[in-house]
């Protein structure tokens, strides 16, 4: 092997090694700084303690943010999964051209920058005096979550053997009962995955939430954003660590329900 080849190989290793370290560094930094024993946010921290975790739970604004985030993410998960399931069931019975039109319409919001969507929705909802409400944040997040739940459910239903439902109906079950007792149990893993993905999208999103929230309706990312722009304390690290933890936990649930490979494939 030539010297240039060897040098190239080491350069390549150093390159992807650096990228790997930079990719995982944020999680390491927030977790480490959340355990700070002092008021300073320093990485690496000198002494470790859980004092900021206990502090966070006594702070009204942060508890409010945790509650807002859970309500928004839960609402988005339920709402977008409902839309996705119904849409995916309906799309099976449409002509190819209508299917493409529906998928296109559902997908487009995912391609529009959050700033533009946020401004557009803020102006629109203000018209009806609906600004600064959690429900409007849920609608905004559903714009990004629904394309994902829709495609996960379409993939799920395309794998389901619909003759099973026909068989149940031949045996005397009504359409609704056949759906509830035959279709649902066989597609529940896709349902869980879709809901989890929607939950995660909402939990992480903050640009639209920033535009649409008020003092009382800030989510964790929005509250962190304001904290970052103000005086820094390890509380932001604690909130960030909890956020990452919640996301990982949700996806573990999804992954066990559906198998990790399919989460990646379907979305």
């Amino acid at each position, binding site marked *: 092997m030539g010297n240039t080849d060897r040098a190239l190989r080491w350069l390549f290793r150093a390159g992807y090694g650096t990228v790997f370290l930079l990719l995982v560094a944020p999680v390491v930094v927030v977790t480490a700084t959340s355990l700070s024993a002092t008021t300073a946010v320093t990485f690496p921290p000198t002494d470790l303690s859980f004092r900021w975790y206990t502090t966070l739970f006594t702070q009204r604004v942060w508890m409010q943010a945790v509650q807002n985030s859970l309500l928004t993410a839960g609402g988005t998960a339920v709402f977008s999964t409902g839309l996705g399931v119904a849409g995916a*069931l309906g799309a099976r019975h449409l002509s190819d051209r209508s299917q493409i039109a529906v998928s296109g319409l559902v997908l487009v919001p995912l391609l529009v920058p959050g700033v533009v969507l946020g*401004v557009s929705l803020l102006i629109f909802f203000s018209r009806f005096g609906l600004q600064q409400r959690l429900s409007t944040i849920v609608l905004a997040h559903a714009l990004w979550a629904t394309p994902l739940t829709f495609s996960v459910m379409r993939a799920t239903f395309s794998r389901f053997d619909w003759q099973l439902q026909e068989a149940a109906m031949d045996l005397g079950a009504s359409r609704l009962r056949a759906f509830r007792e035959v279709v649902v149990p066989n597609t529940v893993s896709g349902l869980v995955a879709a809901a989890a993905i929607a939950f995660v999208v909402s939990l992480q999103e903050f640009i639209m939430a920033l535009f649409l929230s008020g003092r009382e309706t800030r989510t964790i990312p929005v509250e962190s*954003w304001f904290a*970052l722009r103000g005086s820094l304390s390890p509380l932001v690290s604690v909130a960030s660590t909890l956020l990452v933890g919640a996301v990982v936990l949700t996806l573990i649930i999804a992954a066990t329900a559906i198998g990790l490979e399919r989460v990646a494939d379907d979305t």
Partner: protein
Amino acid sequence: MSVTAAGLRDRLQNGELRGLLVAPIVLFDLLVFVVPFGYLLRISLTERTQRGAFVEGSWSIEAFQYVLSTPTLIDSFLFTLWFAAGVTALSLGISLLYAYAIWRAAGGLRVALLGGVLVSMLTAIVVKLFAVQQLFAPNGVINQGILATGVIQEPLALINSAAGAVIGQLYIVVPYSVLAIYSVLSSVDESLLDAARDLGAGRLRAVVEVIIPHTIPGLIVAGVISFTWSVGSFAAPLLAGSSAERTTGIAISDLLQQNFDWAAAAAMGLLVATTVFVALAVTYGLLSYTGGGTDG
């Protein structure tokens, strides 16, 4: 009335109207996306005013004239295009290298490298930017590390600068970009590389001439993700950049919330949306062109 209701129930029972189940999702996207977007277009065509956000019911192209004749706004738009182009170029380079590394790696290393991408995707943007502020600060570990090697005497301005804005934005786009390239690369047969090398090509030449052409569809998708997200960038330049890195996203937010000039904010928003759609249309053209090319 009751006859039609019964008829409708029958048809539902027989499953003839099942296609109607798409109605909620279509209605949702119409009411929460298409209509608000139309309203944004309408507001961009109202008269600007000092008293209030816009003049109700008026028609004017004043807002577009204002946006296109105000140097700070034009500058921010041009800066955003440059910023997005720069981020896209860097993102493609980094992501190609990393996706190639995942592809070549085996066993535990491959899982670890893929895991790194996944971890980054699962870290919220705000969290990543917060970490960037810590890591790349003048007294952060990265600057201290480089200082210790003696290559530089003064810490580099890696945050609160253009470099910071770019680093922050890369943190947002690179994980998605890597996956886009890797998903295409993973279907390429690794023995192609060995074949090229058996035929006497050097390592670099084999990669450049044999592997990269196969990844073009992935590179295009990665490019469009990086570019469109950077055109709409807001958080990274605001948190990791300085006041000189004013992207269109920041300008829109200022127009809306500080100047209370909704007509101009709407016009600027449409400018960004149009840029994104033009980029997408060009990409779609490229993709169908290269898609046709690699089939043969």
